[in-house]
């Protein structure tokens, strides 16, 4: 039981850093919060609503996302899309991630043998 809990919190720590990359990668086209949540879930990335929405806002203040309210429909929705800087950073972050996961993979392989 205790091991389970500890594993859970370690997994959360591990995933936390990847979420930003996942969110940025999903926002090449404009999406509103809930549709983004569903898209990510469809692709197997679990993210809680109470994590995603504050994260979107932070990324927007950091200038990586641009937002726009659409009040045309019955429900007003806030749409997000990558800014120019966001696009650039997403590319760099993706490279970093690939390098990191390769290194990790290699490291774990060697450890096994």
């Amino acid at each position, binding site marked *: 039981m205790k091991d389970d809990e500890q594993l859970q919190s370690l997994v959360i720590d591990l995933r936390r850093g990847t979420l930003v990359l996942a969110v940025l990668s999903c926002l090449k086209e404009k999406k*509103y919060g809930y*549709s983004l949540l569903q898209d990510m879930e469809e692709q197997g990335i679990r993210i809680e*609503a*109470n994590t995603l929405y504050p994260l979107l806002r*932070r990324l927007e203040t950091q200038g990586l996302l641009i937002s726009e309210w659409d009040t045309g429909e019955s*429900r007003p929705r806030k749409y997000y899309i990558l800014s120019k800087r966001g696009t650039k950073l997403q590319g760099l972050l993706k490279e970093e991630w690939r390098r990191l996961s390769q290194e990790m993979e290699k490291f774990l392989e060697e450890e096994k043998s």
Partner: protein
Amino acid sequence: MNQLIERYVFDVTRRLKENERIEVAKELESMISDMLPENPSEGQIIDVINQLGDPRLMAEQYRGKPQYLISPAVFDMYFTTLKLVIPIVAIVLAVIGVISTIFDLSIPFSVYRLFSNMFGLAFSGIFQAAALITIGFVIYDYLELKKEWTISNLPEKVIKPVEKKLGISRAESIAGIVMTIFFTVLFIAMILRNEWFFFFVKDGHLLIPFSEAALNRAIPYLIIGGILGVTVGIFKLYYARWTKQLFIIDTIYNVVWAGILLYVVNWPDLFNPNIEDIVTLYLDDTDFFLRIIDTGGQLIRNISSAAVIIITVIGIATAAVSTYRTNKLQ
């Protein structure tokens, strides 16, 4: 809009900066309505709100970083300081409360007043000390966080942890401080008020073995001794072990006390001129004591002086052994 949603949104946004509140409220409302079907039931709304979870945590996520008055980096030091200072302040003030009640003659003595003064002083002292320490640390933290850490910030002296039996326990040091304050104040108060403590009673006669002039002259020395004693106690709390510095301080204290006692014991007018009467009143076999007094109490002076020197030497030697044992093992 549904009242539950409104209350949830309010509970999150009231924890945010004012300039963010309107925008975040709009976002939250929009996202909650996206998560709900058209015309949702109360149960569905409750489900969604439960999914979003604790408004405090939600607000924290929005703020991005946790807010601290005293950051985790210095919290340990803050807590240690509190643990060190609060008991001393409480006990010292409680003792002062008791003494001041006993010696306040303007109002008749009562147990109720004794306890109310004791706890009143102790509690107000605890809160003031805690408030001052907290404010101090908030300021320290604020100034410290702005500074960049460099190698020169490392502490100059390394204090290695010692085994418990070689350390000086906090209780011991605090007890020392309390006893010093208590007896210093007690003796001075008794001298000033010509209290019964110094009287021998026989057949309804009240006699005092020391001369009044000598006792009054001793007051400044008692004060010096008391202040030194409290200072040494504070150093013991601070070092919490027999370091060389503490040994030096403790030795100076012992020597100063011995010096004061030797000086006072040899005052020519220390004893009451009527001391012969006391002795004759007190004892049936007066020959032996009369011989002592014949020499102006010289034998008493010599015995006291020898006792002072022996006790001082034992005290310093004990401290030296403790210091040696503590430092040898490092």
